[in-house]
Structures are given as structure tokens and as C-alpha cells.
């Protein structure tokens, strides 16, 4: 029963969103090696506590968000747009 405060839409029920995954991964360039890609997509941390993760407001504004959420309590500390330029816009409008 998580609620996510979408920077564009306001607080919305988690049923409007789709879970993405680990938001801290730096995906390698397309021409990177198989090894680098394997690291990026298969070797993931299983964090107990706060983690940065992506959520897609799929039944809302369609924006991808970085959510800082506790995997233990579901407490959410922050929600930001994934796109860095949009992050800046949201920051400036605060």
C-alpha cells in the first residue's frame, strides 16, 4: 500500500505505477563487452534498507521516477524524475 509522490502528478497510489528496478546501475555503452553487460544486468544487490529504484508512472504521466524506498518498511524518502534535465526543472520549481 505504498503511495508515491509523483513530482508531476502529486501523491498517487502505487497501483498507478509499475516497478522498474535498481536505479543506480550505469548501463554500459552498447559496444561494451559481454562481461560488462553481464555485470550490469545480472549481478544485482539485494538491499535491506533504503535503495534507489525506478518506478514508471504508467497509469499517470508516463514519467520514469527515481524513488528512494526502504525495502523493510516501504518508507519513501525522496522521489525525483529519472531524466537529469527534468530533475533540474523540478528542483527549480520548488
Amino acid at each position, binding site marked *: *500500500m505504498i*503511495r508515491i509522490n509523483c513530482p508531476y502528478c502529486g501523491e498517487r497510489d502505487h497501483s498507478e505505477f509499475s516497478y522498474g528496478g535498481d536505479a543506480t546501475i550505469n*548501463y554500459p555503452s552498447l559496444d561494451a563487452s*559481454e562481461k560488462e553487460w553481464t555485470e550490469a544486468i545480472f549481478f544485482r544487490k539485494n538491499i535491506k534498507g533504503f535503495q534507489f529504484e525506478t518506478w*514508471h508512472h504508467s497509469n499517470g504521466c508516463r514519467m520514469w521516477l527515481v524513488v528512494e524506498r526502504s525495502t523493510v518498511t*516501504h518508507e519513501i524518502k525522496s522521489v525525483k524524475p*529519472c*531524466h537529469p534535465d*527534468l530533475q533540474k526543472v523540478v528542483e527549480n520549481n520548488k
Partner: protein
Amino acid sequence: MKTRRIDNYGKINRDKILSFRWDKKDYKGFEGDTLASALLANNIGIVGRSFKYHRPRGIFSSGVEESGALVTIGSKDRRDPNVRATTQELYNGLEASGQNAFPNVNFDLAGINNYLGRFFAAGFYYKTFMGIPPLEWGRGTAIWMFFEKFIRKAAGMGSASELPDPDSYEHAHDFCDLIVVGSGPAGVAAAIEAAEKKLDVILVEQDSLVGGDQLAENNFDNSQIKNQLGNLGIKIMTRTTAFGLYDNCVVGLLERVTDHISAPNVNIPRQRFWTIRAKHIIVGAGAIERHIAFNNNDIPGVMTVNASKHYLNRYGVLTGKRIVIATNNDSVYETAHQLSEAGANVTVLDSRTNFEIETNKSFEIRKGYVPYNINGSKKIDSLDISKSETINKSETINCDQVLLSGGWSPAVHLLSHRGVKPKWDYNNACFLPSDTKENITMVGSSRGLWNKNDCIASGIAGTIDALNRLGISKTNYFFPKPGGWKNPIQPLYEVKNKKSRSKSFVDYQHDVTTDDVRLAHREGFISVEHLKRYTTLGMANDQGKMGNIIGLSLMADLLNKEIPEVGTTVFRPPYTPVSIGALSGRNVGKHFRPLRVTPMHQWNIDHGAKMIEVGLYQRPWYYPKKNETLSDSYIREASTVRKTVGICDVTSLGKIAIQGPDSTEFLNRIYSNDFSNLQVGKARYGIMLRDDGIVMDDGTSWRLAENEYFMTTSTGEAAKVMSWLEELLQTRWTDLNVNVTSVSEQWAGVSVAGPKSREVLNNCVDDSLVVTNNNLPFMGVTSTLLKGNIPCRIARISFSGELAFEVYVKSDFANTMMDLLWENTKKYEGCLYGLEALGALRVEKGHVTVAELDGRVTIDDAGLSKMASTKKSYIGSAMRKRGVLKNKDREILVGFFPTNLKETFNAGTIVCEKNNIKGQGIGRITSVTYSPELGHWIGLGFVKGGLDKWKDTNLVGADPVRNKQMNLKVVSPHMIDPKGERMYA
């Protein structure tokens, strides 16, 4: 039979007589009765048979903790099993029957199980599973299979109706500042305090009446409380159970809207499933009285003390005439006094020797005595009692009722749902709620407060706690200390003489005895979680509300530990059972999923289409002419397309507008094949891989302008592809200037296929020059006008392998387009074709769909290696040949023919070598169809090593599910026109 109803008692409405049926006989009760109180009033003692031993069972309680009086309510399609008679309100015409007995609860043939008790002891099922040693070690399932049907019949509860549920259910949502669970003194005090501080309050009560345990007081009238709550604007929800607490102060409620009404309005849902979002939760859920384990403590006539007080003061039913109360605490004395005042002969056995209690001496108190054994089988004849110091039968008291109070357990269940472990309180012999950081406060007797003033004080303190936590106030407060009795409770869970065998029930509903707990201990199941599962203690639908603590204390005793060291099991939602109907709400039948239709849906139906579900979409399946079967129809349709022309609604394909200066670069990264050089006015088939190198989807992209593309995806993957493109643009490639927009709903699409398709289009477009072979070559795209000035997009794309076009118009023009195309298609003796014919055409051609691209297949597996560019990097390119994906013997796309061309086969068939028909074989058939072109059945699928390896070998198609086998051979997947001469025509 004499009634047990007595005058001048109870809050029932004696002017309103209700008729009801119990086990096929007619009885009467009053408005305000529960089924249990009406049964008791009618002197019906036996209301069920126990789970394993089929012992007669009576009514143990007056509330949700009931573990004996589980009955079936209603009949036919409204038959509802395992309903607690103690919470079922009586209504006129109610039909109820006892369970788990044949022919009835009074005379049950399976009562013989009672004498076979040692075979049904704890772990019976597990042992039967393992087999009877030493004969059957490791072969246990055989004996289980043999006995299963008998066991299931003998050890069951009521059975649900197998007919469709005629009632409707509803999901509802609400918000508030504070939700208060329970309308006893604590909950009401909390709600009033909060409403006076301007909080928006919802008060939830599982009972039909507000008041909580006060409803068992003889002079209690709740009208003043109700007025006060109403005047403060508090939303009162009665007949509503808070069944679970969830993250972020979400409370799940089940509101029983019409379960108490004889002929409910059909427009009103039977039950409502509420999701309430509160800022704070106050739980005043009360406490539950425990029983005491001793021999035959389940004979009908045994009840908790508090229950008899409820029956007397709320329902006007005196449950016994010669009553023995057995206790270890002070809570029973007021009841003893009232029962004797109402005319019963009362004796109290108190296990304690040293205590003072004020009474008017209207009943006898036997200090230092405990119940030892009940004599009787279907009713109580007498009670053997023992001194509490040394357990041995000392004398016998004639009685018709035994009331038990082994102490009280605060209802900490809801807090337990949040993972908060309760802590054991030695002074009060009960688990008390622990503190939590979440906005939940426990008040009243659910925090171990035994007197009313303390409960009221705790309610007010609870609201101050809530206000403080919500940042509204900063007020000091304190909760009263747990307890409140004059004399301390003396722990008493089981009365047993070590030498004698006994049947002392811990969990009435699952027939778990104290000996079962001992057996579990002897066999090593000593953790409480194991104890629970091995004995099934606390696993029935009462979830051990009465018996759990007794079981824990026994295990603690056996382990020489204290109860807190043994621990307690975790309570999980729901607090009381929630019907499947309420969980599903309106999401049943055709409302189970959203329905998607294309803009020409009605047009298709009007033209004879039979529809089929594809994902959420309704698509035309086939268009039968008179008397045609599905197979007649699709074969005719597919042949017509190959011979002349057919048109098919393809609107359900996903459609995405891709715009912006970096669109070409974007497509070139997401598709495995080259998109860097696609000219304006051309389309290209493309394949997308996932990051891990597996095929995600295929489709076409049309270059409409320098910086604008129109992408189509498969029907099923449309939403996934859209999210994927957005993810890439917003998270990974944030420097690309590209915008993606889903336009699936905006465009209606139709495929015009067959040798005459160009002629048809020619007649339909405004300017007939646009569709000539020169102006619109294979994979050409044009934006033009249909007759009547309808703007459209046409691409020369073929899925069928014939000369074919896809035509798209704005959705509003869909029907006009269909009329126009159909009128001209008919001129060439063409047809409308559906998904089945489309499937036949594409299988003949060897085109893959989601049946083949099932998330396990690489681009090479699908025989599409030439679609994987070697000149660029793209999503999945680094991974598509990783590890096992480069194995030589991977399953490769092939076609299949039956060796005997008269034979048929099914999708799902496993392909095996001739003398090695087992396991997963060497491949599988994914799609099959009758090929009108070839005149026999054909299939697409995969085989290890592909065509080259098995070209000339006879293989076997094994279809064990349908008990079928046939010989088959592997062929090229391109079963007709392999060079594509027709498409380019």
C-alpha cells in the same frame, strides 16, 4: 421443548418474531438474536460435529472467537459454509444446518472416529504421506492416494456451493485522519476525543451494535453514545470488521451489508471490501476469554463465562440451570452474581486459594478447586472436580453447564499484522501489545486493561498519542497500567493427572488435544511454528483465538521454559475470514479484465464476425457463412486471400509515433537490424532484443518524414514496448532528442491481402496512381486520401505472404473505411478474414508471432540471423551470443509436416527421436494449422539443431496430454513461396 428465554432480560425486540430453519425443522427467535442465541433459546445444544473425531459440539462463545458453532447458512447457490452462528444475525426465513455429520449432528455415523482417536493424532496426515513403516518407507503416497477420499470426506467442514455466486460485491475506498477499530468504552472515548479535536474520524465495529463488551451489561443502552458520536460527525461503520492492517496506515475492512437481511435489495452489494487510508489507527479490539483444558472439556454445554453473560443480558437467554463456573481470575464474579439472580444455581470453582472477593453470597465459591472431567456425551450430566494443589477427582457436582474462564487474551492480532511482536506479561498471564513506530495505538482491553474506567482513560490517551504523532499537539499523557483486578490471576491452562489418559481440547475447531501437543514435543516439533503446523493448532478459521495460549503454555511446560521464551506465532490477516466474493468485488465474469475493442468492432460483428480475446482485445476470429464451422470458415477465408483478396482488422497492433531529430539514431539502437539508411516513404521490419539478448518483440517502422516514424508492435507487447522506449529515453539515453507517443487508439488499421489487393485499393483511393507497383513498391509507405476525402496511411507490408497493404485511418473513419474496402473487396469475390485465417496464412509462410517469440528465443533461434546487424551495436548485441545462447544444439525454428499427410497434430506437441520418446524431447510444436494451399496440416516450432540436422529423419510428435502420437518430419519454416515472389508482385 422448553425455552431457555427468560423474561425482563435482553435487548432483543420481543414484538418482532422471526422464523428460521435449523436442520430442516422450524423454530422461532426474535429480532436482535444471533443464530446462536436463537438456537440456545430453543434448547438446541448440539450444533456441529468436530473436525476429526466427530464429537458433538455446542456453542462455546458469543463472538468471533467461536470454534464450535460453525454452521452452513443458506442453500443452493447461496450456501455459505463455516459461518459462526455466534455472529450470524437472525433474520426471517434464515436456513441453517449443522456440518460435518451424516445424517445429522445429533446422530453422526462417523462418531466412531472418536474411538479411533489414536490413529488421528497430531501429524496424522504427514505420517500417512510418509507411509507406514517399515513396509512403506518412501512409498507413502500410495496409501495416501488410497485413503484420501475417505479421509477428506470424514475430516472436513462444510462445503461451499458449486454454483455461481448470485450476489454482487463491491470494492470501496475512504480516507480519514483517524480510524478507530472497536466501539467499546476505549474506542468510543478515543473517537469522541479525536472528533472534538477536529479530526475526521471513522469508527469501525464488527458487531451490529455499537458498545463492545458493554452490550453484555444488563442496563446498557447505546442510544446516548450513538447520538454523541453522530453529533460529532463521526462516521460509524457497524457490521464491519477491520480484518487487516497494511503499510502506511491502510486498513482493510469487510462490511457485511446484507448478510442480516432476509430478502436483500438485489441492487445492493452483499458485502463491501473497504480500503481505508488513515493518518493514524487506534485499535480497541478488546480481549478474548480463554477456556481451560481438561478431560471432555468440549461436551455441549461448555462455554466461556463472558458468553453466558452476553446471552443473558443481550439476548435474554439463561444458558444453564445448574451452572459451574471454573476460573482462575476475578472477571467471573459479576457474571456469577447475575446468573444466580436470573435463577440459575451457580457454583464457582476458583483455582486460587488465597483471595478476597465481595459477593452477596447468592452462589457458592469453592476456593482451590479446578474442573477435572465432564461426565456426559451429548450434554453435560455432571462435573468431576479436583483440588488445585494435587490433581485427582475429589467429588462430583451435578450440573448442566460448565462455564470457563482461564484468563483473557488481548486482541493484539491487528498489531501483529504489522510485524510487531507482543510481549508476555506475567502479572496478567497474557500477551500485551508492544510499542510501534508506526501510527498505531492500542487502547482498552486490547492493551490489557480490565476495568472500564481504565479503558476510557486509555482511549483518551490514545487520541492524545495520535495528535502528538500527527504533530497537532504536544500534550503529556499516560496509559493506565495493565491489569485492574483486585486479586492476581493464577495461571491455569490444563488440569491433568499425569497417570490418566484424557481428551482435553486445546483447539476445539481442529480437534487438537493437549496430548497432541505432547506428541508433537516428543517427535521434535518444538518450535511454535512447527507445533502449529504439525498439530494444526490455531490453523482453523478461528485462528486459535481461544486456544493458542494454552498450546504455548503446554509447550513451555514440556520444554521447561517460560511462555515468552517459547514465543508466539505471528497472526496474519484476515482477523476473521473474508469471502472470495468480497476480495474479487466487481472483477468477475466479463468484468474480470478491462475490455478493449477496435473502432470497427460493431462493424465486424454486424458482418458476421465471431470474436476472440487477444490480450485485452476482442478481435475477429472468423466470419462464418451459413452452417460453417470454425475450420470450414478459416480454410475458406485463407484460400480466398491466396486466390483473390481478403480484408482483416489489424487495429489491435501497438502503434507508436516516434518524433524528433534523433529518431533515426534511436531506432538504430533499439532494433537489431540497420535503420540508419531507411528512406522517407519506406517501412522496414525490425526486431527488438532485450538487454539480455533475447528477442523482445517484432514489428515495422515507417519513415513518414525526416524526423518522424510510425512504429507498429505486436498486439500483446504493445504496452511493454511503449514503457521500454520511455525508459530508455528517460533513464539511459537522456541526450537523445526523441519523443514517443502511443497512438494505438488513434489509428484504425486494416490489412488488405491477396493478388487482387491492389485492384481493391485502387478503387478506394482518391488518386489511383499512388498504389501502383512503381509508386508504392514492396515496403513503400504513402500518406494519401481514401475516397470521400479520408486521410490515410498505406504501407505495402505483407504478413500473409501475398501482395498486401496495411491501411490506417483516424479511428473515427474506421467504419467508413471498412464500408469502402468491403464494397470493393466483394467485387473481386474477396472475403473478410479473421485471426484464425491470418494464423494459417502466416504459419504457411513461416512468419513468427508471440507463440514462437516467447521470451526464450534468440534471433538466431528464430532463423532471423540476417536481421542481426554486424555493422553496429544495439540493445542486446553484446549479450545475444552469451554462454548457452551460442550452443550448437539450441532449438531452431523449423516447419513440421505429418509423415502421413492425413494426420493432424496440436500445438504443444513434444518432438522426439523415434526410439527415445521421453522428457522434453528434442523440440516442440508452437503453432499448427490446416494449410489450404498444401492440403494438409502443417506446424511451426523448434527442434534442436534445426532443419539441417533432421531434414531426412522420421521423428515422433508426442502429445501425452491428449494421449496422441504421430510420425512427423522437419521441413523449412517457409512452407510456401519461399522466395517471396507473390509479395513482390
